[in-house]
């Protein structure tokens, strides 16, 4: 009987050995496939065992995103808490359990979780894993100034729109505010309440500063004027006659928003046209240059491409002509685009506040457009700097001389034109107003784009406010921009 017993014994051992093989298969060969499965909750939980880095405001002190640890089932999990609530929410975004991440929490996830491909970080994370200790991510310090951010938020209270403030010489984003904002702390448990606001519009999850599309109105005249001067076809003194309207395709296009009392300036030059935002002047400039040239200059300022920024790609949109909600690139602009309306910012133009801030910043920086950047530096838990902001030239859309001429024109618009509300005693402010009719009676989108001080610019701002009944760029948006500039410069 011993032979049979041995055989059965071998069978038993083979069965058990098969189990070792099976376990090996699942834990090594098949593991990658298992880890990628959508319904693998273990992987989801694993993301929360990492102590994410803290996100700080530009003062390196104000924490914007911190961790709260919780013991769950023998594991320490780290959940996010946002001490400043809605103040920075559109930039910082959120990282919660049941939703996809947004904002920098998403685009900087690698840095924040210590999984970025930086030698120092790789080494440290690997050591942490081997030791079995908690993996700690890198801290991220932003360029945003907490005081400017708070001020802009306060000024936008009860309004819908956005404020973007850039440092023209470096591209640093000093403030980026969208209203209405959401409270990231409520996203996980009270989503409906998180997105509720007292502003008269919805879509509080939308980062209007980078993804809100607005008609630029007269702020686009900065681009048209840049094209006019930079091509050499016009000078600031080029003469025009303003009859109060401009003839396009045999029809009169009146100047200002109120068709019953059109302002008529008579003989003027380009500078006066800019100062008082005379549509007929720019209409004629547009017709002379052609839509193609104006659009080409718009492109040089960054239109038609998604502006670079550290936030996720899908939270930014390109500016330009839009047709049925899609970016429209005319193949034959001379036939497809109305040059006069384009020149004073109508047609089908849709722009983001970030893009208009970039135009103002490029003019301020003597024609050199700096890449806008939000992240000042990334710091490892041990205190060493992983990356830090290096100012980068994005392009040079216009010549230095053009920029300086434009600056003078924009200064005049503030000292004696449409933007007088932005005046700051003792500081030279350059600006351009914009008021876009949205086709509902007197309701306008109001704009102001500006920078200061004009001789050595330290801040360039674009402010947009939606749905202003009877409001204009010069009355609604310019005062907001003024206070933000004052806060920085004084």
């Amino acid at each position, binding site marked *: 009987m011993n032979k*049979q017993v041995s055989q059965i014994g071998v069978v038993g051992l083979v069965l058990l050995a098969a189990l070792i093989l099976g376990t*090996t298969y699942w834990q090594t060969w098949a593991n990658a496939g298992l880890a990628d499965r959508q319904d693998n909750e273990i992987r989801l939980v694993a993301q929360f065992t990492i102590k994410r880095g803290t996100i700080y405001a530009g003062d390196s002190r104000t924490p914007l995103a911190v961790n709260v640890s919780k013991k769950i*089932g023998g594991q320490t*999990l780290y959940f996010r808490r946002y001490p400043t609530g809605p103040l920075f929410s559109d930039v910082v975004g959120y990282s919660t359990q049941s939703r996809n991440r947004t904002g920098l929490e998403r685009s900087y996830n690698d840095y924040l979780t210590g999984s970025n491909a930086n030698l120092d970080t790789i080494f440290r994370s690997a050591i942490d894993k081997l030791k079995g200790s908690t993996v700690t991510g890198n801290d991220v310090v932003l360029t945003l100034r907490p005081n400017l951010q708070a001020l802009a938020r306060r000024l936008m209270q009860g309004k819908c729109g956005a404020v973007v403030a850039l440092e023209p010489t470096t591209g640093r984003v000093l403030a980026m505010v969208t209203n209405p904002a959401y409270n990231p702390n409520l996203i996980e448990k009270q989503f409906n309440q998180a997105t509720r606001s007292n502003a008269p519009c919805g879509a509080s999850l939308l980062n209007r500063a980078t993804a809100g599309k607005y008609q630029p109105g007269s702020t686009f005249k900065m681009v048209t004027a840049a094209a006019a001067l930079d091509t050499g076809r016009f000078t600031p003194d080029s003469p025009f006659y303003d009859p109060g309207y401009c003839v396009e395709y045999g029809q009169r296009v009146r100047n200002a928003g109120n068709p019953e009392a059109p302002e008529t300036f008579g003989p003027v030059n380009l500078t006066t046209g800019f100062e008082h935002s005379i549509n007929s002047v720019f209409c004629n400039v547009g017709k002379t240059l052609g839509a193609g040239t104006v659009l080409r200059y718009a492109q040089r300022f960054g239109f038609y491409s998604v502006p670079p920024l550290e936030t996720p790609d899908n939270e930014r949109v390109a500016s330009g002509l839009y047709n049925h909600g899609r970016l429209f690139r005319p193949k034959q602009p001379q036939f497809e685009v109305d040059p006069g309306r384009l020149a004073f910012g109508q047609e089908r133009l849709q722009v983001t506040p970030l893009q208009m801030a970039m135009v103002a910043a490029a003019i301020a920086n003597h024609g050199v457009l700096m890449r806008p950047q939000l992240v000042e530096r990334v710091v490892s838990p041990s205190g060493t700097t992983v990356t830090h902001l290096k100012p980068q030239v994005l392009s040079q859309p216009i010549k230095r001389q053009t920029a300086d001429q434009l600056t003078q024109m924009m200064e005049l618009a503030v000292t004696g034109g449409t933007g007088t509300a932005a005046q700051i005693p003792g500081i030279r402010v350059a600006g351009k107003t914009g008021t876009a009719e949205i086709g509902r009676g007197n309701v306008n989108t109001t704009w102001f784009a500006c920078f200061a001080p004009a001789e050595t610019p330290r801040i360039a701002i674009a402010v947009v406010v939606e749905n202003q009944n009877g409001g204009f760029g010069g009355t609604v948006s310019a005062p907001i921009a003024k206070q933000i500039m004052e806060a920085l410069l004084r």
Partner: protein
Amino acid sequence: MIAVGVMTAVGFASVYIARKSVVSTASLTYAGLFFGLYAVAHLVVRATVPFADPYLLPIVGLLTGVGLTEIYRLNPDDAFKQAGWIVVGVALFTLALVLLRHDYRRLEVYKYLFGITAIALLVLPVLPVIGLTVNGARLWVHFGPLRFQPGELAKVMLIVFLAGYMREKREVLAQGRLKDWGPLLVIWALAMLVLLETKDLGGGLLYFGIFLAMLYMATARIGYVAAGLGLFLVGAVGVWRVTPHVRERVTIWLHPWTDHKVYCPLSGQFDLRQNCESFQLVKSLYSIGNGEYGGTGLGKGTFLTLPAGNSPPHPIIPDLNTDFIYSALAQELGLIGAAALLLVYMIFVLRGMRTSLLAQDGFSKLFAAGLTFGFALQTFIIVGGILRIIPLTGITLPFVSYGGSSVVANFLLLAGLLLVSNRANREMLR
């Protein structure tokens, strides 16, 4: 005997170190009590069966220690109950050794009694009032708060019966006369019917496997095994056709994941199969996969979901500390730990088979080999099911899973092996 000490010490050291990561203060007294329990068991073994195989008890100590540790990690309340059951198991183990220390072969006389009792035990859960259905299988008997799975005990009894009967009739069985097969087949058919009725597929497979293995050892006729396997296949196909429960198990086994939504009988709606019927299997595979080579470390595995929205965390895998304890261990101990655990099972099987080989008489040989093979097969059925080697059927992992009936029955299994081994070694020395 030195080996016993070393093995036990290593076992307890590992258990203790592992425990320390979970609890810090209670662990010392806890480990101390556990050590004391096995010290008592060891003394009992020395006193009653001094010649018994020195590896078996320490291995069981190690396995129960690992199991208890993991159960504690998953659910401390269950661990205290389990510890209680281990005490009961050791007590019955002691009782069995004391009663049968002179000659366990007395059992052979009562083989029919054992056979019939086994069937009776299997039938118990089907009875109204005391029967209880858990997870679709009617395997439980309850008296008030006390629940018991009599099938586990029936396993050991059936092996006693089979060993006794086959020892007696092995020659005639080999000739294949129907008259001698009668009682065997009657008891067998009854057992299988009961298992079918209780939907205990894992149990059915286990008993059938033990039966075939013992039949082969007794008769040395490979043809019986082939015929048995053939019958099993025919039966399996038949059962597959008539029982939706079985069909479902096979479908889950072959296609646990679907890309499109299929009808989900659990909710009555359409859903991906991994969210429905194969939920448990798939989550368990994720758990195993997450262990990789080194494991997450004891106490650091992920067994709960994240709190999402307003709902608190809930277990990812249901029944984790009973049927699925292997996937918990595989995650926390990794491939190294899981393989080591399986190697421990293999050592147990080796020692058990060695006992059978050394035994002098047919009953002892069949008894020891039957117990050992049952032990190996039961491990294979549950772990193989978890690893998708075979269709998954719920059954406990010997000595490791949470479950009083299982622990007690397996301690009796251990007692049986030690008794056989003691006698065999004593006769060798003579």
